[in-house]
């Protein structure tokens, strides 16, 4: 816990001594970004962990995305667009994280770095599916995860990926087809 955070907490706390239940004016951006974080941080961390495979990176990615949203609040403004913005920032950062890792290890594909414990929990068969998913091109993987894990609508996926709905549709079906092929090959 950083000292700074503690100061702020202190500030937040002091007035509680005096009066409760009264309304307060909190900086609008702070309020909205905070609410968004409260509501969506877990989902976004899960998205990130599925993409990068380790929790520490997932944490960083989500924190960076919200910090970015706060800094650009003047441009984003509406909560709806803000969510699309953080989603897309999370995807972006996940891509970067994977790129950094790939460069570091000098491999073409680096499967997510599941811990041994997590791997055991997930099980062999699911691991195969995840490994296949991670062999897909980044955009295809994203389309699949947003649809079948995040359960987003086509429009939401299009906004998060910054492509058209048509592209979402074609990318998703292509991705699903190649994933199916890979799993069949693995089974043989």
């Amino acid at each position: 816990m950083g000292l700074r955070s503690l100061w702020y907490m202190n500030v937040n706390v002091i007035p509680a001594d005096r009066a409760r239940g009264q309304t307060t004016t909190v900086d609008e951006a702070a309020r909205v970004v905070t609410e968004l974080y409260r509501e969506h941080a877990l989902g976004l961390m899960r998205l990130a962990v599925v993409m990068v495979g380790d929790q520490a990176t997932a944490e960083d990615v989500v924190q960076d995305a919200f910090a970015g949203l706060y800094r650009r609040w003047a441009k984003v403004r509406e909560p709806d667009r803000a969510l699309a913005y953080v989603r897309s920032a999370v995807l972006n950062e996940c891509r970067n994280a994977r790129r950094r890792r790939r460069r570091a290890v000098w491999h073409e594909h680096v499967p997510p770095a599941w811990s041994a414990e997590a791997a055991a929990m997930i099980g062999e068969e699911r691991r195969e599916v995840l490994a296949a998913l991670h062999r897909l091109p980044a955009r295809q993987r994203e389309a699949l995860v947003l649809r079948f894990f995040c359960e987003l609508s086509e429009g939401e996926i299009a906004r998060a990926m910054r492509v058209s709905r048509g592209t979402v549709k074609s990318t998703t079906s292509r991705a699903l087809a190649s994933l199916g092929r890979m799993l069949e090959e693995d089974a043989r």
Partner: protein
Amino acid sequence: MNTTEGRLRDALSAAGAMVQSSDVPILNLEARRRGAGVRPRRGRRLALRVGVLGAASMAVVAGVSVSGTSDKPRNAAAAEALAPPPGYNVSVFLCSRTSANRLCEGKDVTREQLTQIEQAIRAVPGVRQVRYEPRVEAFRRFKERFSGVPGFQDVRAGDIPDSYRVQADASARPGLLRVMDGRPGVDQVIAE
């Protein structure tokens, strides 16, 4: 679960379930470890706004870390701590030797600066009440507030600096921020 889609859904939800709500960390907008471009740029205004969010984000922390536990007293303490503040308050934190703000130059606020800061605050129309709060007092209240909350035990007296606690009308806000922004001896201004 034999279709590709079914297997994918199943695998993804198992992988995602590795993250639980108790794993969601504090929203920390100040110290980003390595995020490119997330380093706060120079300028007091940014620090000030991030500070405001810091306050708000702490509310999230308590909310998130508390959910999912059945620990009643802890819940109550956190909820009480997060009760909304009355009216409009501003805290003007003053420079201390441990301050991270470069403008403080690693020095405590001087007596002269203190006088000037207080005068400047009082001169802003709409300011109702100004109270000096020494760090000892801030620390005492902080300890009281968080005696039952885990994670806040290692706070020391010097961690929370001296401050002016200002109560003001909403109309005073821009004026206050303007006169405090970058003033010598002022570390950080936090508007609630």
